[in-house]
């Protein structure tokens, strides 16, 4: 089982690794990650069963996916600061708990697996998408404003699903496992790193008791819907880290 590491750029600053969510790929960070190259060494990744990575996903559990991410990231200089979205945030959280020195958290965005858990139907239906109209309708559940789901995004998702004969089965395996994992209590949310959540998230809404602020009018993909806010939060955290080390 392999994740596929991808270097975006950036010659100096901390190593930052972006982990995408279920059904997405490294391109989901397009409105955020490339713009941080002046302050960080930026890396993205395709999780197993996604993007350019092979379709072997083991039991599909976040734990096994996290092991694949750790293996793929082994050659990165430590520490590798993690930014995760949804499933990618679950994985980042797991890696951080296993080895906080190697994998500090830079930010978690709409992390799945807390409170009420993620939208089970969304996960299950995703791997079965075939027609552009049904794909658009499902993707629109991720966002607060439908205009963020473009024809290009619909085509990209369908192309990804058809990329290999085993892609749909890989995603269905991950979806089934995610739907069977008991959500963590809000008390398990990591402390000390920015948590970025939209107040209109219908896929993995912020759990009851979440004490942080919510981005108004933003759904499950703040890095697309509110890219500027996400970039600012990440830049602020990178500046805080640089200040702490100075």
């Amino acid at each position, binding site marked *: 089982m392999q994740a596929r590491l991808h270097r*975006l750029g950036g010659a100096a600053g901390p190593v930052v690794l972006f982990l995408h969510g279920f059904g997405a790929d490294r391109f989901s960070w*397009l409105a955020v990650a*490339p713009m941080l190259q002046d302050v960080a060494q930026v890396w993205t990744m395709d999780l197993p069963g996604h993007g350019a990575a092979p379709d072997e996903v083991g039991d599909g559990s976040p734990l096994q996916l996290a092991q694949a991410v750790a293996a793929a990231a082994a050659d990165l200089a430590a520490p590798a600061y993690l930014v995760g979205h949804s499933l990618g945030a679950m994985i980042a959280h797991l890696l951080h708990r296993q080895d906080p020195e190697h994998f500090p958290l830079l930010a978690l965005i709409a992390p799945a697996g807390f409170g009420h858990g993620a939208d089970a139907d969304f996960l299950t239906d995703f791997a079965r998408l075939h027609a552009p109209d049904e794909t658009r309708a499902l993707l629109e559940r991720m966002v607060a404003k439908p205009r963020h789901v*473009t024809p*290009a995004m619909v085509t*990209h998702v369908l192309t990804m699903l058809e990329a290999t004969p085993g892609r749909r089965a890989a995603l269905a395996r991950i979806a089934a496992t995610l739907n069977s994992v008991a959500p963590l209590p809000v008390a398990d949310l990591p402390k000390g790193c920015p948590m970025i959540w939209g107040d209109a998230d219908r896929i993995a809404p912020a759990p009851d008791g979440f004490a942080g602020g919510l981005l108004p009018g933003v759904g499950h993909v703040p890095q697309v819907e509110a*890219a*500027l806010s996400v970039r600012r939060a990440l830049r602020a955290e990178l500046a805080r880290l640089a200040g702490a080390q100075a």
Partner: protein
Amino acid sequence: MTPILVPQLGNEISEAEVTEWLVAEGAVVAAGDAVVTITTTKMAIDIEAPVAGRLTRIAVAEGELAEVGATLGEIA
């Protein structure tokens, strides 16, 4: 005069299509306001005004392609 540029989009994307100007030429904008939406082969990205001022020129019309680093418009 401050240009509104197509931002860095990583080493796999070199151009984007201007899909929608969110403000009209001549309009006053605040720094950080979304002014134009560009679309790559993967997704749409809102580009924000780098400074406050007036959108004095739209250099790339809706439906046209622009390369990374190209000037989309100008704020003065």
